[in-house]
């Protein structure tokens, strides 16, 4: 029983740091559940997907009401992300868990890299009135293809996939950064839910693991987005690059059947 209490506390911190750093909780939740609590990889992915839905729904309801996100663009790209997530979820059921550990380790390195060179979204001066489309969306077919891939990553590894969606919208489709971040957040819930049902139908959602972690994450993320909406997290971000790299090594070693530090 105490394990579950600590899962909730861990989830709370994952949600808090996630919302302050602009990370989905997933990249922190899965290492926590697998490395610390020894939950099987697929159950950890399933629980993480549920957590991702919770954070996204909480945050998206704010973004949507403030008209920051572009619902039309989001819906269009969701056609691709949901298909991608279902495919990813099915593939995750076929692959060996060790391989999932190794793939997750690669995702952590990519996340650390993005975080290392990330531009502060508040410094972006381009127009960002989500509802008033004063920007022109380019490369829609390519964007759909990339969104399918983003959904794939989400369904396969149990993360939101914002780390793929935001660059796709911002760099490829020329959506203002703020709108891209808000729209990505909006899409993450639907994407993760498509993936989560694949795991649900395989019976991989453990109610207590998912329930306790999700509750923690939900509270943490809600607190984070209300308490620190404008925190300058530059140093925290740099510190997190190292944490992510460490987690990546630990996941890699676990995938290879050994341990790195603990």
């Amino acid at each position, binding site marked *: 029983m105490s394990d579950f209490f600590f899962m909730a506390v861990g989830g709370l911190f994952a949600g808090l740091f996630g919302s302050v750093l602009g990370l989905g909780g997933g990249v922190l939740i899965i290492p926590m559940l697998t490395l610390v609590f020894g939950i099987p990889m697929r159950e950890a992915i399933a629980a993480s997907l549920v957590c991702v839905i919770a954070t996204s729904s909480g945050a998206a309801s704010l973004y949507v009401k403030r008209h920051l996100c572009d619902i039309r663009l989001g819906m269009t790209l969701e*056609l691709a992300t*949901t298909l991608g997530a279902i495919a990813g979820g099915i593939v995750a059921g076929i692959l060996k868990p060790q391989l999932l550990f190794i793939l997750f380790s690669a995702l952590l390195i990519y996340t650390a890299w993005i975080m290392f060179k990330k531009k502060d979204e508040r410094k972006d001066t381009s127009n960002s009135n989500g509802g008033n489309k004063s920007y022109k969306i380019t490369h829609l077919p390519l964007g759909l293809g990339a969104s399918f891939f983003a959904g794939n990553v989400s369904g396969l590894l149990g993360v939101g996939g914002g780390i793929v969606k935001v660059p796709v919208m911002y760099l490829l489709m020329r959506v203002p950064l703020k709108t891209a971040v808000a729209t990505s957040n909006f899409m993450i819930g639907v994407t993760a839910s498509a993936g989560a049902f694949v795991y649900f139908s395989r019976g991989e959602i453990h109610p207590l693991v*998912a329930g306790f972690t999700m509750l923690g994450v939900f509270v943490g993320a809600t607190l984070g987005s209300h308490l620190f909406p404008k925190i300058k997290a530059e140093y925290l971000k740099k510190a997190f690059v190292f944490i992510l790299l460490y987690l990546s090594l630990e996941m890699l070693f676990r995938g290879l059947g050994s341990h790195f530090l603990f």
Partner: protein
Amino acid sequence: MTHKKEKVYSYVGTILLIGSFCAAGMLILGLGMLFFHAHPQDSLTSLVCPSFSDIFSNLLRGKPTAIINLGILLMMLTPFLRVVVAVFSFLWEKDFKYAVVAFGVMVILLFTIVPSFV
């Protein structure tokens, strides 16, 4: 094209808020019940990965885990609900192109939701 005071935004935002807070409330209720009458073997071994029909039969027997399961399911269904709401809101606004897009997303989601419920 300006979409200033669109209803879509406010409906979709509201459904997300209601769904996620109801789900969180059910979780707190279920986890609280479990905390206060925890039967060690009941709470840890009989829990693993139930199916949808199990959830309902357990709910009728008043099992805390069934409430937790239902809370998780409600959280998982919230994004689907908001897609359904978006379909109708786009229709209401006579924005048929995006009503079709949202309908497409709804159908894809149904393809993954329905098989896990039967």
